[in-house]
């Protein structure tokens, strides 16, 4: 590789890295501080395709991002949460397991999916973002589903 090409490569890397960090710095979801009460529903798909609820509780939290809330639940031994990836990944971390229900086959599932009918971020986009990008607000209801069916 000659010097000119090397310079172009370095320049491209510097530009892209700067733009990447600028984006990560300026694009932050609006969060709500203070105590929030959420409803957390967790369901798993049974062999006949029906969904069985394994957790349905209202929970108070001061966390501001859904992933942090899940980890708080894990720390408090209310749930056992498994995540993969890093917060700094473009889509953040992925949920791999809750209470032993684990995704082992990423091609055909079952996977952990989540949805919310009233979370502002999910409603505005018409789909929910990754758990590291989803701010939580008072009275939000989140439904986590362990399923091989994507609607």
């Amino acid at each position, binding site marked *: *590789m000659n010097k000119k*090409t090397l310079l*172009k*490569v370095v320049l*491209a*890397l510097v*530009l*892209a*890295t700067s*733009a*990447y960090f600028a*984006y*990560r710095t300026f*694009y932050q979801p609006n969060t709500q501080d203070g105590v929030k009460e959420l409803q957390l529903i967790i369901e798993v798909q049974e062999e006949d395709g029906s969904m069985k609820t394994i957790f349905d509780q209202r929970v108070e939290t001061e966390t501001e991002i859904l992933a942090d809330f899940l980890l708080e639940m894990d720390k408090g031994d209310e749930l056992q949460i498994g995540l993969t990836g890093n917060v700094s*990944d*473009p*889509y953040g971390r992925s949920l791999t397991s809750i209470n032993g229900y684990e995704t082992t086959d990423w*091609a055909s599932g079952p996977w952990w999916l989540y949805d919310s009918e009233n979370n502002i971020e999910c409603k*505005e*986009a*018409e*789909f929910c*973002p*990754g758990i590291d*990008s989803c701010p939580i607000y008072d009275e939000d209801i989140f439904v986590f589903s362990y399923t091989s069916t994507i609607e």
Partner: protein
Amino acid sequence: MKPILRVAVIGMLAATTVASQVVLAFVPNVEVVTLLFIIYAINLRTSDAFLIVIVFTIIEGLIWGISDWMIGYLWIWSLLVLVVSITKKIIKDNADIWALLAGCWGLAFGLFFALQWALLYGINAGYAYWLKGIAFDLIHMASNYIIVLLLFTPINKQFRNIYQRLEVAYGHHD
């Protein structure tokens, strides 16, 4: 080129493209598919390059699961082939310009998919999809630029050499 050889070439190039994608699938948005489609569109007939896009998309669908992203792959990669086919006489073998085009392509890739999302699921969904994916698009832009800058000249030269030898050996069909 004889039709049977042409079919074989299209199949092999589509398979090569799929293999390159699968090998690099563990690195988000780092791929050589853009480079390969640029090279195909420069050296092959536009219709053949389009056929490679179609076969590539079908095989990808069989590997990763058939879904609406296949529609995106079909029109977005076809658009790249079209853009290259139109501009190849002006750009010729200038790796710097192809690298710039590939970089822009990487940056716009998420936007193209967002347009499709907007059409299928509403403007808000498309906008959110684009916004959430900008970080990915930036990686795609830089990796595309560097890959094409470094690999375009040697691979294009080899590809043209092999393809011309094939044409000499088996002659033109029409």
